[in-house]
Every structure is written in structure tokens, then in C-alpha cells.
């Protein structure tokens, strides 16, 4: 069980070995990353049944909590680990510009992501979050686009300010309670619900919200996605934003299930949905449209989080997985759809498969009945309707209204793509990666289609998982109970 630490150690080792090994053998260094990621996938699959119904904790170095650093392993963190590994394999830069540096950064990203989903210690969360941030700055700055350094710099400023907020929040929590272990904090929850504790939580949400594309702190989104390659955008929008939400989730679920906090998340979510959809409606190219649509989708996740307990986590995870699949797929697909909307005229007639995949994705994104997206939106609206608060009623209206706006701009694009093309437009130049990415997009679309009949069992599994993760007593007991400690380091 304590082999779980390999999830962080191996990618970290690989990250620093890749540039060294590349001096001797290019092939080995190229294979190192994918091999590690594949190993992680297999490893997580093996651990899945070991975890079973009981989650377990790992005490690094054998130091007992609350002193030592703790990793908490349950199905939730295992699922995210698997998703991280799979997603990184999809966007792996096989033969791209400055490949060695990128591969190294991707491995750093992997290590910090695994740490983020496993860690059960506030300061550890901060360190891994910061490591993740550094890796993304590097990746964004390394893009061949002329504007990339400027975009990376703006992103760095916003993100760094966010990280400091996170740090101050953690500092306040430590000042109040004298501990950083989340399970230990959960045992003294009363202390945290004062004014200081709540302001600490708000600081944490704002800090992590930068990467989660949360409403007031997401000005970096269009710039970074505009200058990055489509696979990096798919990674940032699909995965990294979700990891920041996971950080918020851990703190929210265990420590801050308070009405004020939930209302705040709801308001932030509503504003995110509205602002994202409205700007996306005005966009004139696919990348910009997708960037803002992704802000809106993350807003939906925050709306879901504002429902307390199991239901909230269940809906949030459902929305996150759906968005990861669909928006990741759309960004990969966008590699074959460069340029403004006008230059896409008749694209779907030239390549019907591309058109079909695009339709599958946007149908699911909008929530048209047989597709998984429909069920998630339906469950979200039903559960919102069950709340008494008038704010939740407003949220229903906003979610439905946002869907209308979304439909309007997405179908506008569809109409352009299926227009008869009279003028003889030269086919837009294909980037070196578009073929590969189109293949992956096809694969993502296949998952969306195949998952249609299985929506009900999948959602049941997710509900079980959420129940396991929300269970604070289990969480505290797993981490704080001492007897298992013997030789577990």
C-alpha cells in the first residue's frame, strides 16, 4: 500500500532524468515519460480493488499525524490519478518543438498533480499546487507563438497573487487551530467557523480559483489558450482546472459545509456561467469561443458545489468528468479548425467525420437528451429545484438561460460549417499535430457515445464514490486512528 508514493516519486525522478538521459540516448529519454505514465495507470488499476470500500492513509516517514505528512487514498483520488495519467499520455509531446523541455515539464506536472489529489495536508496541497503552477508557466512560456512569453507573464502574475492568497489563508487557519492536517482540522471544526476561519476559506477559494477559471480571476484564460498549442489548451482546460477544484473540494467538504460559504460559491458560479457564455457568444474564432465556454462550464461546477454534501460532490464530479471529456475533445478537434469562423465555411462538408464529431461534442455539451451531458444538467437542475433558497431558484434560471446562449453560438458555428462553400477557399494549413489530435478527438467522441447507455451505472458508481469521500468520520478515523502505524512507512 505504501507504494502509493511512487506516483509522485517516479514522475519527479523522470522529470529531472529526461534532460540528462537525452544527452546519451534520445530514444530512451523519449520513452521514459510515457513508460512512467503507463506504469501509473497499471498501478492505479491494481490498487483500485485493494482500496475497496475502505480508504486508507499513508504516513510518510512513519511520523504519525498530526505531525507527519499524510496521503489519503480513496476511489476519488485513484480515479483522478488515472485520469491525470491518461490525459497526459494523450497530450504527450512526441516530436514537438523543444520536446525535451516540454516532456520534463509534463512529468513535473504529473508528479505535482498526483500529489495534489493524494495529499491530506494543507501546506502540502499548497506546495503541490505551486509546483503545478510552475510547470504550467514553463509550458505556456515555451510555446512557439510570438505572444507566448507575454501571456505566460500575465498568467504568472495572476496565478502568483492567487497562490499568496492561498498561503495567507493557510496561515490564518494555522493561527487559529495550530494544525495543518485536514483530518485533524476536521475534528475541531467549530473553531474554523468564525469570521477568521471563513475569511481564510475565501482566500483559499480565490487562490485556487485562479487555476479553476473562477469568475473574477480568470482574465488569463483567453490569452493563454490563444497562444498555446491545442493539446496544451486541452490539458489546461480539461485537467488542470479540475485539479484546482479538487483542492477546493478537499477543504470545502471536510471543513466548511456552512451556508455562507455555499451561497458564496453559488454566486461565484452564477457569475462565471453568465460572463463566460456572454463573451463566448461574441467570439469570432474557435479557440476563444472554447476558452470562454470553459469558464462557463467551470462556473457550473461551482454551482454544483454549492449543493451540500454527497449530492454536491456527485454532481460536481459528474460535471467535471463530462467537461474534461468534451472540452478536452473539442480543443483537440480545434487543431483541425484553425482561423476565424468564416474560414471554416463548408468544413463539415469537406470532412464529414470532423463535422460529426463536433456535433457529438456540442450536443453533449448543451445537454441534448441521449448524450451524457443531458443527464448531468437534468440532475443539476432537479437538485437545485429542491433547495428552498431563492438564490438557487435564480441559479436554475441562469443555467437554463446559459444553455440557450450556448446553443445560439454553437449552432451558429455548426451552420457555418455545413454551409455550401461557393468560393474556392484553400484548405487551412494543417499543423503537425492535427492528425494525431483528430484521432484522439475521435476517441474522446467514441467514449461519449459509448457511455450513453451506461449513464445510470456510471452515475451510481460516482455516487458511491462521493459518499465515501464526503464521509468526514471515515476520513478522520482513517487518518487519525493510530494502530495501523506499525511498519507502514
Amino acid at each position, binding site marked *: 500500500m505504501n507504494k502509493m508514493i511512487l506516483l509522485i516519486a517516479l514522475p519527479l525522478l523522470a522529470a529531472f532524468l529526461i534532460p540528462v538521459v537525452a544527452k546519451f540516448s534520445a530514444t530512451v529519454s523519449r520513452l521514459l515519460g510515457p513508460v512512467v505514465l503507463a506504469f501509473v495507470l497499471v498501478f492505479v488499476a491494481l490498487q483500485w480493488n485493494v482500496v475497496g470500500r475502505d480508504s486508507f492513509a499513508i504516513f510518510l516517514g512513519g511520523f504519525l499525524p498530526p505531525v507527519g505528512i499524510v496521503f489519503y487514498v480513496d476511489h476519488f483520488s485513484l480515479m483522478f490519478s488515472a485520469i491525470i495519467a491518461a490525459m497526459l499520455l494523450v497530450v504527450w509531446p512526441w516530436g514537438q518543438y523543444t520536446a525535451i523541455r516540454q516532456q520534463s515539464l509534463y512529468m513535473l506536472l504529473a508528479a505535482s498533480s498526483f500529489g495534489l489529489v493524494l495529499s491530506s495536508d494543507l501546506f502540502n496541497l499548497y506546495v503541490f499546487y505551486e509546483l503545478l503552477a510552475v510547470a504550467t508557466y514553463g509550458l505556456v512560456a515555451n510555446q512557439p507563438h510570438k505572444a507566448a512569453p507575454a501571456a505566460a*507573464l500575465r498568467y504568472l502574475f495572476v496565478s502568483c497573487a492567487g497562490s499568496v492568497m492561498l498561503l495567507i489563508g493557510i496561515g490564518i487557519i494555522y493561527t487559529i487551530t495550530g494544525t495543518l492536517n485536514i483530518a485533524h482540522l476536521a475534528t475541531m471544526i467549530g473553531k474554523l467557523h468564525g469570521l477568521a476561519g471563513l475569511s481564510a476559506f475565501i482566500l483559499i477559494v480565490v487562490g485556487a480559483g485562479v487555476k479553476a477559471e473562477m469568475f473574477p480571476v480568470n482574465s488569463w484564460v483567453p490569452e493563454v489558450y490563444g497562444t498555446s498549442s491545442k493539446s496544451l489548451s486541452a490539458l489546461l482546460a480539461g485537467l488542470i482546472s479540475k485539479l484546482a477544484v479538487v483542492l477546493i473540494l478537499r477543504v470545502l467538504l471536510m471543513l466548511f459545509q456552512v451556508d455562507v460559504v455555499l451561497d458564496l460559491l453559488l454566486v461565484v458560479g452564477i457569475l462565471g456561467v453568465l460572463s463566460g457564455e456572454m463573451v463566448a457568444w461574441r467570439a469570432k474564432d474557435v479557440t476563444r469561443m472554447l476558452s470562454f465556454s470553459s469558464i462557463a462550464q467551470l462556473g457550473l461546477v461551482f454551482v454544483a458545489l454549492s449543493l451540500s454534501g454527497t449530492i454536491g460532490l456527485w454532481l460536481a464530479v459528474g460535471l467535471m468528468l463530462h467537461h474534461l471529456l468534451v472540452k478536452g475533445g473539442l480543443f483537440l478537434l480545434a487543431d483541425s479548425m484553425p482561423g476565424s469562423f468564416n474560414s471554416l465555411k463548408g468544413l463539415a462538408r469537406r470532412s464529414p467525420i470532423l463535422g460529426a464529431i463536433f456535433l457529438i461534442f456540442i450536443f453533449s455539451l448543451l445537454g441534448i437528451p441521449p448524450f451524457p451531458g443531458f443527464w448531468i444538467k437534468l440532475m443539476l437542475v432537479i437538485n437545485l429545484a429542491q433547495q428552498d433558497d431563492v438564490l438557487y431558484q435564480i441559479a436554475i434560471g441562469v443555467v437554463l438561460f446559459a444553455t440557450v446562449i450556448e446553443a445560439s453560438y454553437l449552432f451558429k458555428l455548426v451552420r457555418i460549417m455545413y454551409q455550401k462553400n461557393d468560393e474556392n477557399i484553400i484548405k487551412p494549413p494543417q499543423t503537425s499535430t492535427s492528425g494525431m489530435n483528430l484521432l484522439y478527438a475521435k476517441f474522446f467522441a467514441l467514449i461519449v457515445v459509448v457511455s450513453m447507455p451506461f449513464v445510470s451505472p456510471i452515475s451510481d458508481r460516482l455516487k458511491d464514490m462521493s459518499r465515501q469521500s464526503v464521509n468526514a468520520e471515515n476520513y478522520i478515523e482513517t487518518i487519525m486512528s493510530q494502530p495501523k502505524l506499525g511498519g507502514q512507512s
Partner: protein
Amino acid sequence: MMSIEVTIENILYFGAISLSLIGLFGMMMLQNVFRILLSLVLLEAGANLLLVLSGVRIGGVAPIITEGMSAGVVMNDPVPQALVLTAIVIGVGIQALALALIFRVKRNYGTLDLRKIREKLEKDIAVSNEVSAPGSYQAPEKLTESTGANQ
């Protein structure tokens, strides 16, 4: 009841919070990217000071047990100090990275003014996507109509 005593601890807290606020204000208000970076340094310094303060016991000694120590000695909490050490290292690394990026931005765009950088950045993104630059708040439709989409 809410009168705040002037103790060394409160003065330090006041200093830490002020430093953070100055930094935050600078980051939001200034236009020169290098100054923004310096504001970030201030912000981080304030946050670190705040974190250290959470472990300070006034009159406490370093948390090292030495020979001949009596049992009742007040010690400072070592955990925040360890945390701040980590935070400082991370901060310095990121500041260096930011400086390198500022260097590259200066080389590409020839300016350090954030407004100009943003303008050029938006234009470059728009050009690479073959669309007209998105309208800014100052000039909503001027750009969008005149250029038109490239065919």
C-alpha cells in the same frame, strides 16, 4: 472592548498585513511589469511574515532542547518557520522565472508597459487566429468593423 493594545506582536501583525496590502495594491494598480513583479515580492514578503508570526511566542526561544533547560521555557513554534522556508524558496524561484519572462517580453515587444503589452498580445492572438482583434472597453466596435475577417 475592541481597543487594540500596542504590543510588539500587534505592530508586527499590522506591518505584515500592510506589506501584503501594499503589494496587492501595487499589483492591481501599476502598469510597469517590473514594478508589478516588485509588488509581488512585497506581497509574498507580507504573507511570509504573517505565517512566521503565527508561530511566534513573545519571549520564546528557538525550539531546540539543550542541556540544563528548565521545563517551563516558552518556545517558538517551529512548523511555520519550516513552512515559510519552503514558501520563500518557491517564491524566489518564481520571481526568477518572472524576470526571465519579462526579459523575453521586452525583447519581443520592446516595452514594459502592461497596457501596451496586452494590446500587442491581443493583436498577436487575433492575427494567429485570423480574426480582427476583440474590441476593448475603450473602443468597442472600432477595430472589429474596420478590419473584417480575413478570407
